[in-house]
């Protein structure tokens, strides 16, 4: 239409990317260390665990659901995967008689357990019709209990070298968790934008009745959505335990909230039907740059929390105004 409209539309669409760019520019002036390659990779590596969770959470939120169980799922997957990935010469192994297993075993354990938890979430939401908030609140509590039960409340430590590689290794100078984050983001983007499943997610969140009368199998799709999110929480558990060389039942507390925050800052709407993977990635990066920047500037951890909260709410207020304008 006119220039003013276009600018408004441009900001509506790309505002969140600009926020990230502006933050990076400001930080690079304030702190000489910020733009160093080491620090930047560090930022991305730090957000990669939350980032991977937020990819799945994005699908869930687009479908008008929510997943509160990701942090607990991460912990359960971490201790279980770690128990099958302990180094052979470690004295305090969880299964002393178990030989050192190839890394594929803990990987499959993490993915399988995560998917299973997701399936429980999905079945609860789809079959009983209870709100996703309640269903995943239940698993959030119980799955944490399972992690404690499984590990007897103790850390499962000293993992094989190939396991640790998942969290600590580098390929061509890039940390493995960063690679995993971007590869999974790409895969999820393709799933969301180029498969029937992805289209169905948007349809279910946008108008569940329309989806149903158009022949979308809403129940089965919901289960798949939560399974996917659970699986990614499992990957996150694998990454975090590999990085710290230990699986602990108390890991990942409140990670689900950070993941929801990243998704939300990235423009995914909790009223369903709207959201992108790019947004989730940028949202996670914004949180990472914020954390890192405030640390470099020596802002106290207490203030960091306050600022983070304010940013989440501001992002949503701006997003809602953008959507309201359309009417």
């Amino acid at each position: 239409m006119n220039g003013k409209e276009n600018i408004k539309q441009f900001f509506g669409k790309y505002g969140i990317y600009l926020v990230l760019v502006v933050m990076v520019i400001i930080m690079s002036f304030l702190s000489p260390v910020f733009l160093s390659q080491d620090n930047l990779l560090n930022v991305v590596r730090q957000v990669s665990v939350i980032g991977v969770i937020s990819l799945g959470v994005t699908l869930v939120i687009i479908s008008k659901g929510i997943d509160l169980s990701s942090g607990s799922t991460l912990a359960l997957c971490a201790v279980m995967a770690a128990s099958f990935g302990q180094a052979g010469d470690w004295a305090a192994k969880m299964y002393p008689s178990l030989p050192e297993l190839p890394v594929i075993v803990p990987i499959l354990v993490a993915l399988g357990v995560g998917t299973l938890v997701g399936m429980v979430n999905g079945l609860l939401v789809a079959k009983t019709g209870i709100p996703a908030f309640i269903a995943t609140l239940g698993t959030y509590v119980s799955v944490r209990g399972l992690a404690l039960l499984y590990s007897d409340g103790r850390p499962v430590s000293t993992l094989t070298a190939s396991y640790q590689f998942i969290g600590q290794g580098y390929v061509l100078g890039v940390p493995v968790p960063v690679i995993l984050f971007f590869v999974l983001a790409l895969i999820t983007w393709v799933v969301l934008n180029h498969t029937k499943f992805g289209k169905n997610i948007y349809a279910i969140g946008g108008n569940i009745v329309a989806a149903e009368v158009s022949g979308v199998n809403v129940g089965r799709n919901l289960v798949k959505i939560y399974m996917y999110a659970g699986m990614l929480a499992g990957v996150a558990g694998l990454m975090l335990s590999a990085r710290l060389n230990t699986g602990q039942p108390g890991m990942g507390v409140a990670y689900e909230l950070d993941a929801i925050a990243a998704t939300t800052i990235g423009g995914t709407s909790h009223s369903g039907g709207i959201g992108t993977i790019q947004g989730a990635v940028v949202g996670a990066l914004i949180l990472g740059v914020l954390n890192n920047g405030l640390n470099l500037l020596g802002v106290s951890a207490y203030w960091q929390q306050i600022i983070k909260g304010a940013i989440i709410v501001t992002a949503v207020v701006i997003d809602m105004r953008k959507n309201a304008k359309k009417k």
Partner: protein
Amino acid sequence: MANEYVLETRGIRKVFPGVVALDGISLRFRPGSVHALMGENGAGKSTLMKILSGMYKPTEGIVLYKGVETEFNAPIESIRLGIAMIHQELSPVPHRSVMENVWLGREPLIKGTPFVDHRKMHDDTKRLLDDLELSIDPRIEMAKLTVAKMQMVEIAKAVSYNADVVIMDEPTSSLTKGEVEHLFRIIRRLREQGKAIIYISHKMDEIFAISDEVSVLRDGNYVGTYPAAELNTDKLIALMVGRELNEMFPKVECPITDVKLEVKNLSSPGAFQDVSFAVRKGEILGFAGLVGAGRTEVMETLFGIRHKCAGSVLIDDKPVDIRAPEDAIRHKMALLTEDRRLSGIFPMLDIKDNMIMAVIDRYRNRLGKFLNHAQIRNECGEYRHKIKIKTPSLEQKIMNLSGGNQQKVLVARWLMSEPEILILDEPTRGIDVGAKAEIHTLITNLAAKGKAIILVSSELPEILGMSDRIAVMREGRLTGIVERKDATQEVVMKYATMKP
């Protein structure tokens, strides 16, 4: 032998907790024919259609499709068989593109991959829309279309299923005249292709213009099926209502006295400018105009929902400053809003809670904090009988009532506030003829009691039949006020479309 009927129901009965929605419905639908289904709201048309489209299961009875007994367990099953339905309440996915909406649930895939073939989706949609003479970009977001265009996309979607039976539940409710004709062209073409079209509408002229056969339901019972040529409006109404409605507009001349409400040069930027009129006690002032003329906006401004930027409002010759609905209620005004579902009912609350919402302060007991439930029950009971709300009890959730009865509850809400100025915005939209006549009687009685009434309606016969004077708006301006004796459709339409 080929089947004469493509779709047939035998003895369909559907019971919901406490209500028999359908009782022994047997209908037969021919290919290549438009079969209208008529009945008041609550007669069971929508329930029957939901059974045919697989959303409900009948309690008893069978459905035969192409002569074979068929059970539909989900919408997808009836669609796959060839029964497509266009729903009364539009059901698009708002933030997705037109093409994604059309192919929702059956997106074409690139051969041998799990990936959606966007190009094929686009081209197929384009072809489909072109075929229906619709100039809509397949990639545009659904929410950016007008309601009419969305409806056309829904119709295109139904056509794309290549269904043998197409059910249209009030497809014209938001279409203009030109768009309705466009739709009829599409329907006629579908009929020529041998499809059976089941057409539900409340608009009589449409029924006679398009349908071959008419079946009538009343209170969940089958009344009969008639060739459209053998019916006329009066006969059809009599069949639907089960009684003769002699007077559609029971207007009684009553004394009109002093000016109650006067509006001078009211403006609201972007909505309307320079609107002036007055309503007297005992008078019904009709507001006519095309959709979008700014009538609703004027009423919202009067009631304090919108901010005015200029102009003054006088009640009993005294200027008043109304900034919020509370102020309006204090000045004894009442507004029955245009959209019942959006700004009228609280669907999850029961009838009495819905009724007392505007005057809830009145029912505080002596302690001043708690509600006096006995008093609430008594007074709600009075209104229930006074305006004949059909319900098993006052504790019934309002969403379980028919549209007409919901509207009556809302009328009761405003009568309880004992208003002196009533603004009724489309009070009979989407409600059946019986309830309509009752609401018209109610309006007349209120005028006879000396209330000043503003009646906004897009139905010209209603405006002409009910009003003492008619104010006509066009594009945000008041173009004329016509006296009852001079008012004809032609005069009103002239003002509604003329350049100011």
